[in-house]
């Protein structure tokens, strides 16, 4: 075996300030957009809702078809359009139920072809009536049918598809209908009912996905609440294992003679950096606390929360206090930001100078100050205050656009443990 130097340098993980996102495999796997797992995290449920909605809309449209039956010069294409639409809806719902992941491209293409045919047939059926907006039925319902694939195709696909349907209908209306103020309203109404449901659906699903991702991020950060006083973080063991393996390979290649002595400068420098990294990783985790890991592992907190905790005092907090502190930071970041203002939260933990109240002599007091800029004092709501109260007794003050909380937190004396 010839020794190949490791491709990655892991030093960035602990030297040079803020580590890169140290997120677990689970976290990475689950927070990617449009992954199959996100479907099972509730968007699948939303998809079922969309199916129900589309079906209801189809029934409503069919009622219209029946009431208009006598008005059609030739009702056969209109009926055929409806038949096709029902087949497309039923087929898509079945396919989505059977498929555990995204709809494949060819199936999506088939779906779109089906919808295009529906629109074409319906428009053909009512062409001679010269009032698309008034008489179109399945063509309008076809626009809403895009809701079916909302959860199984990337949003961009749907945006393009709904735009094409909207534009096509607009062109058809412009060509076919002699527009007057009297017949303009039905055209607008028809167009909006074809396009808007899908647009609203897109807004809904993106908000829902944001909720799921935010919640996932929060839950992953919460896993630090029960960590010991000092912890190494999710990536530490993996990094160590990788370094150990890289060292093993290098040493092995030397032992079996496939790497010749004296070493080439390149391999010598690899050995040097392996030694340095290994040294750093072996002493890692002596000073890092759960809070440090919670912040660095979270996409959301990592961007706006900074921590000063020279004495690693955060490690002394019990799980309830930790939960309160984490929720406080969370709510400050998520909840109280002014629109367009990037808010930042700074948490500083230091020994407290105030005397411990009588009856708590076995405890020590630490002072936690949370300074948050870009936060409006009166938008901090009850749940945030509750979270803060879990940490300890607090005072709050406001200056300029920043809110400062000073929390007095009683913890078990580490000397007693």
């Amino acid at each position, binding site marked *: 075996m010839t020794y190949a130097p490791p491709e990655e340098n892991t030093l960035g993980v602990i030297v040079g300030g803020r580590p890169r996102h140290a997120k*677990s495999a*689970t*976290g990475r796997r689950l927070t990617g957009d449009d992954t199959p797992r996100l479907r*099972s*995290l*509730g968007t699948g*449920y*939303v998809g079922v*809702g969309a199916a129900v*909605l589309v079906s*209801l809309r189809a029934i409503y449209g069919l009622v219209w078809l029946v009431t208009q039956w006598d008005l059609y010069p030739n009702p056969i294409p209109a009926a055929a359009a409806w038949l096709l639409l029902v087949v497309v809806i039923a087929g898509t719902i079945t396919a989505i139920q059977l498929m555990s992941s995204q709809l494949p491209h060819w199936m999506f293409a088939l779906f779109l072809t089906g919808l295009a045919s529906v629109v074409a047939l319906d428009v053909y059926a009512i062409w001679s009536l010269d009032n698309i907006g008034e008489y179109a039925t399945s063509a309008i319902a076809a626009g809403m049918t895009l809701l079916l694939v909302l959860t199984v195709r990337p949003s961009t696909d749907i945006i393009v598809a709904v735009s094409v349907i909207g534009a096509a209908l607009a062109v058809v209306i412009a060509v076919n209908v002699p527009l007057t*103020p*009297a017949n*303009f*309203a039905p055209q607008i109404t028809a167009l*909006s009912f074809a396009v808007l449901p899908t647009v*609203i659906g897109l807004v*809904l699903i993106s*908000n*829902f996905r944001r*909720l799921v991702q*935010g919640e*996932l991020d929060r*839950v992953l950060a*919460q*896993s*630090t609440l*029960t*960590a*010991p006083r000092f912890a*190494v973080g*999710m990536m*530490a*063991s*993996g990094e160590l294992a990788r370094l150990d*393996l890289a*060292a*093993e390979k*290098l*040493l*092995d290649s*030397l032992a*079996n*003679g496939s790497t010749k002595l*004296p*070493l080439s400068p390149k391999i*010598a*420098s690899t*050995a*040097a950096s*392996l*030694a340095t990294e290994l*040294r750093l990783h*072996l*002493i890692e985790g002596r000073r890092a606390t759960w809070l440090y890991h919670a912040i660095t592992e979270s996409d959301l907190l990592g961007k706006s929360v900074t921590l000063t905790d020279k004495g690693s005092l955060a490690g002394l907090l019990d799980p309830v206090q930790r*939960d309160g502190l984490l*929720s406080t930071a969370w*709510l400050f970041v998520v*909840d109280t930001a002014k629109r367009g203002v990037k808010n930042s939260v700074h948490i500083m933990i230091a020994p407290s100078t105030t005397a411990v109240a009588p009856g708590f002599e076995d405890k020590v007091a630490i002072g936690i100050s949370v300074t948050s800029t870009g936060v409006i004092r009166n938008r901090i709501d009850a*749940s945030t205050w509750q979270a803060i109260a879990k940490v300890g007794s607090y005072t709050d003050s406001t200056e300029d656009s920043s809110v400062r909380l000073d929390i007095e937190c009683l913890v078990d004396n580490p000397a007693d443990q």
Partner: protein
Amino acid sequence: MQTLPHMDLIAKERDRVLQRTARVASMSFLTVSVICLSLPGAVHTMTLLLCFPLYLIIAVMQFQVGRSRSLGWVVPAFVAGIVAILLIAGTPGGPSQAGLSAAAQLASASLACLAIVLTTTLTRRLVLLASFIGVAGITVVALEPFQKAIPTLGLLTVGWILTALIGFWISSGVPQAVRRIASIGRAHRAERQASEIEAQRRQGARLLHDTVLATLTLLAHSGVGVSADAMRQQAGDDARLLRQLRLGATPTPQASGDYSLSTPVSETVLGTTLESVKQRFGRMGLEVRWHGTGQVLLPSDVLDAFLLALAECLENVRRHSGVTDAHVTITEDDTTVRAMITDSGVGFVLDDVDSASLGFKESVVARLKEVGGQARLFSTPGSGTTVVLEVPR
């Protein structure tokens, strides 16, 4: 304990989804309605001018619904909507088809979309019911002279039921998603604990990492002063130890070159492990001479720290002293085991040398401190260096 999702936080998140959806939906249909209303001849110009401020009020309310949970934004929107519908119906000469479309878009779509945020609590559902009765009743009655009551009511009912269903559906979908996410959180916590234990196991294999690090450092200096054969043998030994570590054991280097898996004995004989350090440095060209006691029993963590510090000092001698032999004297009393590492090399002025550059502070002092020990360093240029390491028994 922390596996329970925070229901108030989740309710807030859920409401945010509902609010934003309601905002976009209601405002888009409001736009369609105002376009229809503005078509020439839809309503009398006076009516149009009176309706504009009402539409503006509705728009502001609907925008605010997107960011606030308060019902205070919802109810005024309904009131303004009802007034607008009455104005449209009462326009001089009656509304045209476009005016009726505007009223329909407003009552059955735009206002109906506010139902999305009115499904989560009993109070809200009651408000929803009252609003529907108010809006639908007044719309049907006011527009009755221009269109039949039943289709108007039908359209209104369909619009409001659909939007309310969307609200209910999302409200029930969110807790489902949250439960699944919470179970992922539990799995993640287990993963974190496993990772922590694995990291501790690897970090705990200090003696092993110490010899590996020493070898790697040698290699980094292209193995200066060490024969290729010795280097190769050392590398092979270390690779074997690392393989054992990878396969799940915690191997401890032994004197004779065969390796035993560590057994959970609390005390280890110092002598045999000292011998392995001696052999290792021997291969690298530093002759280590032992003096004093060879049979000291120490708790394994203390022993680890002691040996690591000792090896680190010897490595410094090898690299910096310029001599090829060092003396280690081990002494013990009731409370302390002491090692004195002496060389007759170049020595140095203590103040001139950044102790960190020797790795002294981190690798020697810190390690000993962790087990309650200490280290002292004596040196003068030209008369060698002495390090005294002490650990408690």
